[in-house]
């Protein structure tokens, strides 16, 4: 998990959850395995068929704004997207990423520099992004949150806590 290498799918500012995972599917598609086929359907119809494990999504400001629907994260984590790098994240989307152990990286400088389609490297432990334009650093996750992330997501984290309580 420490190192991610993947192709970049680059998008703009204020990409909302309605275009990441359409609302009309929120109560008809319930199996996480089925979610990737609708990912970014209303934004980039080529994405769902073309995405490869470890690919990286690069977005502008306020990625994931709008509805709190977690499917907008799960449709990407189930597609094995390696990370999302953005100038900023909508807060519920950001929380949903961490809770699903999908790295959400805030790094405005890297977003400016990274080109669509290039292959980049991310070192999560060192907080480093390496792309054609150079190297960029980002701050590590807060410690309290790292615990959830390290457990592999909130489901595993809570499971362990419940077991510990028994």
């Amino acid at each position, binding site marked *: 998990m420490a190192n991610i290498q993947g192709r970049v799918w680059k998008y703009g500012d*204020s990409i*909302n959850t*309605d*275009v990441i995972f*359409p*609302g*009309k599917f*929120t*109560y*008809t598609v*319930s199996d996480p395995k089925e979610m990737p086929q609708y990912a970014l359907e*209303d934004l980039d119809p080529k994405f769902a068929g073309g995405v490869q494990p470890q690919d990286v999504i690069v977005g502008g*400001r*306020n990625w994931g*704004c*709008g*509805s*709190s629907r*977690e499917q907008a*994260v799960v449709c990407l984590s189930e597609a094995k997207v390696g990370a999302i790098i953005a100038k*900023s994240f*909508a*807060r*519920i989307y950001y*929380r*949903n990423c961490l*809770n*699903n152990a999908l790295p959400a990286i805030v790094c405005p400088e890297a977003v400016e520099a990274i080109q669509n389609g290039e292959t980049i490297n991310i070192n999560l432990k060192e907080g480093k992004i390496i792309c054609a334009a150079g190297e960029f650093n980002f701050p590590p996750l*807060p410690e*309290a*949150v790292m615990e959830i992330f390290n457990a592999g*997501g*909130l*489901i595993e*984290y*809570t*499971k362990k*806590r*419940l*077991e510990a*309580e028994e």
Partner: protein
Amino acid sequence: MPLTFAEKILAKKAQLPKTVPGQIVEITPDVVLSHDNTAPIYGLFQRMGGVKVYNPDMHAVILDHATPAPSTKHAENHRVIREFVKEQGITNFYDIGKGICHQILVESGLALPGEVILGSDSHTPHAGVMGAFAAGIGRTEMASIWAIGQIWLRVPESMKITVNGTLPIGVTSKDLALYIIGELKADGALYMSVEWHGEAIGALPLSQRATLTNLMAEMGAKNSYISPDQLTFNYLKDRARRDFEAIYPDENARYAVEMEYDAGTIEPMIACPHTVDNVKPLSEVKGTPIDQAFLGTCTNGRLDDLAAAAEVLEGKKIAPGKRMIVIPASEAVYLAALQAGYLETFLKAGAVIESPGCGPCMGNHMGVPAVGEVSISTANRNFRGRMGTKESEVYLASPAVVAASAVAGEIQHPKDI
């Protein structure tokens, strides 16, 4: 040290003398809200090894997103939820037709001053209208609260919005909120706690204050707060489910951002396709043809919203070939609108009245647009595809403007029909 509302309430809940922005605290919320997503959250809860919920009395479960069920799949979802609440002994359960979750929390006295409300819905900040700390969260973290009763929260920076003066006649809190969102943009309050101050806010009825806190989700806010006053306490008198203690920000609290507006300069505003921050004055958008007008939602489906629309529609007809859909925000609103004669006005004008719930707001059912059609709506979102098809456009406006546009068949000011 003087504290903002968010810093103060999170300190109290975390049993700390104070908190600062950026600090992570672990707290137990007073109310957890879930709606039609209760069944998938239950699935996550079970995957965590959960058997019995931490505290059944903490829950409010309200069916509103696709009610009555538009398909067998939706109906199965509702069935699972009914079994879940029964099995877990959850008494704050509101079945189909009772109303939209945010409206129900307020009406049923579950949204209380000085309490923390977390909901698996992005418009949960709505409940801040009663002086609560109310924030939206995701499904997995909701399931985790059900299991262990706790969640981590980051203490947010605070934004103070002061609105002085008086809104002109015919201008509503919807116009004020849209104006501010247009100025500050969709990430203008990202991760922040937005506090409303000023005489113009105090002068608003609770229902219009709720439109403000509701819409702050569209500016990226974590929560939005209005100081409880006599109006709040009177409303809660025979309604509050338990004793509560209001929390107020300190006089000299430090805010990350302070904005000041003059209500007297606000005019009717429209959020144009395809973002809520693409806001223009009505005067610039007038004359845009529409196919459908939608009056309802948690943002503007309350009694005074229906009253404003009924006043416009009285004795008039929806334009030939156009449609208008009316959905009261709750059963109580529906009944009051019936008794006040508004529903008769709507029917005589040619509008379609549907049962309380979210309706076509997020494209589920009850009047979704066709490809190429244009809607004008009192809702809070107009993202591409929001109402079902990405090949349609949604304009957002106040109830009176939506009603006037239905009569004109194009976006129109009530005084010009």
